């Protein structure tokens, strides 16, 4: 095989010999020669170490140097293997890259980066702000006990804890050193936000992707760099091929679709504004659960309107899938930014005038928004979007862009709320952690599988739950039907209607038999116990039968494989057996 090295081989070997070990190893790896050529050209480390031994050093010193250098390089390479165990999610990320390609991987890498970011900010806030306050004792003026609703609304019991602004008092803590809480709060938050802006990893990736991207036009990049060698799933490859050769052009419909999307955005802003006014009035009535109305509606707007945008897209074929992604992202960003803008205006101008301790209130509002966003988008809408996106052209890139926007929106809320609620990054960490595993599962489901999941979800929790509720209403003696209305007025329980009727049957011919059956079979607990036991035992037998059949299928499969691989052998065997 020809090698393209500029220097002749002895010169190359000599040059490499002058470098320190790590640099030399890296330089040897970068040479575009085959392993065999490198070995015969005298480039392996053994050769260099033997040269070292031949230098005019005492034998002990030279073998010591050899031992030290060898153990360093071995240590370094074994660190690389332990890295896979320690780094978060490394195995899952490799799996995702093989199944879905590099674009989807970039979404998950972004998620992981956000998680690390939030973790770091949580640690900083915890150690500088929350822990000193906890040590000093909390600023409690009212005592409210913990009810479950706090997890959703953030108010109530959480109101006076370190989670929100209101839980801090600005005194100076006298211990060994004086710790000024006011200065600590101020400087931690401000420094943290400033440092995030200047963060080196953000700047680096910005430089790498945006600045350099501008210099390569579409065609060359499309040809040489677009093929993703890491994808090994044939369906993904086929759809990629179809997209590469897609080209159409329309223009007049663009204007109409832009107008429609702007109208939708303006409409949602007006709705949010109106709702903010209502929210203020409601909270004056001190009704906690009603404060959930604003977050729910805002989150719904942010989730539903992009679906309407994509419907608008469908009537308007774009010149290339890439511009579909850009334009849709632009519209989504516009929508979210305007909604957030209205919320910020409301928080900063209207709330302070009407509510005491308004910072806690704003912090709780942000907390509610984050929690609602997580619940509604992650649990509900991901399913719906997966089905809806799977049916449109250019689907996977679209989906990634929207998921990334969701992450960015969540992080924006966390940053906005950080002044009002220092421990908000903790919520964000939990949310991102759960989102990783859910998205991993969701991306791998096809539309048909999603519908199965939908139906299973509908049946099990939904239907069975409602059945249980109705049964409880009918059966329990505690729930007396109301006296003034309804068909069961005057009875003690709903079920009494049936038992009264059965008693009345006793006088008719054939009646006593039915009454006996009713009394001793349907109303007896022993009967139900025995029948449930019988059903359970029957299920157990069926289950064992299924297991046995699975094993049988497995062994039949192995037989098929062995027969097809060695047909001659099986024919011989059957010949021998027949003799």
């Amino acid at each position, binding site marked *: 095989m020809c090698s393209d090295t500029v220097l002749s081989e002895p010169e190359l070997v000599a040059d490499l010999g002058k470098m320190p070990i790590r640099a030399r190893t890296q330089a040897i790896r970068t040479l575009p020669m085959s392993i065999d050529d490198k070995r015969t050209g005298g480039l392996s480390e053994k050769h260099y170490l033997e040269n070292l031994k031949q230098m005019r050093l005492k034998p002990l010193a030279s073998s010591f140097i050899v031992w030290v250098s060898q153990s360093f390089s071995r240590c370094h390479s074994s660190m690389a293997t332990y890295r896979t165990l320690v780094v978060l999610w490394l195995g899952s990320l490799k799996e995702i890259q093989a199944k879905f390609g590099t674009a989807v991987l970039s979404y998950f890498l972004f998620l992981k980066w956000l998680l690390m970011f939030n973790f770091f900010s949580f640690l900083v806030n915890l150690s500088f702000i929350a822990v000193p306050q906890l040590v000093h004792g909390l600023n409690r003026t009212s005592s409210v006990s913990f009810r479950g609703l706090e997890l959703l609304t953030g108010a109530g019991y959480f109101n006076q804890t370190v989670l929100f602004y209101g839980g801090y008092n600005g005194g100076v803590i006298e211990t060994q050193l004086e710790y000024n809480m006011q200065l600590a709060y101020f400087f931690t938050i401000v420094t943290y936000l400033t440092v995030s802006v200047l963060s080196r990893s953000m700047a680096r990736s910005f430089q790498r992707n945006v600045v350099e991207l501008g210099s390569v036009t579409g065609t*060359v*990049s499309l*040809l040489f760099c677009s093929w993703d060698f890491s994808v*090994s*799933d*044939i369906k993904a490859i086929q759809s990629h*091929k179809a997209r590469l050769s897609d080209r159409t052009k329309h223009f007049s419909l663009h204007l109409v679709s832009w107008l429609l999307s702007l109208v939708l955005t303006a409409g949602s802003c007006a709705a949010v504004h109106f709702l903010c006014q209502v929210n203020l009035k409601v909270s004056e009535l001190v009704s906690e659960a009603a404060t959930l109305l604003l977050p729910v509606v805002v989150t719904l707007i942010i989730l539903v309107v992009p679906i309407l945008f994509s419907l608008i897209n469908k009537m308007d074929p774009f010149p290339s899938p890439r511009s579909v992604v850009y334009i849709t992202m632009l519209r989504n960003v516009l929508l979210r930014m305007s909604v957030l803008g209205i919320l910020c205006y409301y928080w900063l101008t209207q709330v302070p005038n009407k509510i005491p301790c308004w910072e806690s209130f704003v912090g709780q509002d942000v907390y509610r928004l984050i929690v609602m966003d997580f619940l509604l988008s992650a649990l509900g809408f991901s399913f719906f979007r997966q089905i809806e996106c799977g049916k449109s052209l250019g689907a996977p890139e679209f989906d990634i862009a929207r998921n990334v926007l969701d992450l960015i929106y969540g992080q924006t809320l966390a940053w906005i709320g950080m002044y009002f609620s220092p421990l908000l990054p903790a919520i964000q960490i939990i949310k991102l952690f759960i989102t990783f595993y859910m998205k991993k599962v969701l991306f791998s489901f096809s539309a048909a599988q999603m519908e199965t999941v939908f139906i299973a979800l509908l049946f099990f929790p939904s239907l069975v739950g409602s059945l249980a509720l109705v049964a409880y209403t009918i059966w329990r003696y505690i729930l007396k039907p109301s006296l003034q209305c309804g068909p069961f007025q005057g009875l003690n329980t709903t079920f009494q209607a049936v038992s009264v009727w059965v008693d009345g049957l006793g006088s008719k011919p054939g009646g006593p038999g039915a009454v006996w059956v009713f009394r001793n079979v349907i109303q007896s607990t022993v009967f139900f116990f025995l029948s449930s036991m019988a059903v359970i035992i029957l299920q157990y037998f069926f289950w064992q039968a299924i297991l046995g059949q699975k094993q049988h299928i497995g062994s039949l499969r192995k037989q098929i494989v062995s027969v097809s691989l060695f047909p001659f052998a099986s024919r011989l065997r059957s010949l021998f057996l027949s003799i």
Partner: protein
Amino acid sequence: MGGAASQLPKEMVSEYQELTFLTKQEILLAHKRFSELQDRDSLSSRVPMEKILTMPELKSNPFRRRICHVFSTSEPNDGSLTFEDFLDLLSAFSDSATLEIKSHYAFRIFDFDDDGTLDAGDLEKLVNCLTGDTDETRLNPEEMRQLIKNILEESDIDKDGTVNLSEFQHVISRSPDFVSSFKIVL
């Protein structure tokens, strides 16, 4: 099952670690996958190209034959790979390989006629590989000519009608997608 030794000696593993970009785990995994491909009855340590192309990582790749030809060290270059050729392949496509190595091998893979430059014929074969074999996805001659003209305008700096290795490396270095898409992980 009898046949080839199933363990790589430790000195060989550390030698491979020094000469390639692979970690110890990757080398051992590659050895395992390669032994599965090897024919237990034949004496040679080369695996023919057809068997290599049955691997799931290469099976649906449009450049699979070119990849086997580039990394093969057999005398009449028939695309068969020894274990060391296989390691070279994985090393060039690994996570830690540098941009220079990847662009060097990408150039050789895209150079269909092995003449050291990418001329119009090579680019045409490249486009056909990417767009597929059916009639509706293939480009017509007019579109093909226009596309090749665009590419040469952007990448051919000395205007000799072909893209040589340095011009290719220059144009690749400005594209941030290349390193991440030129990857095969077992």
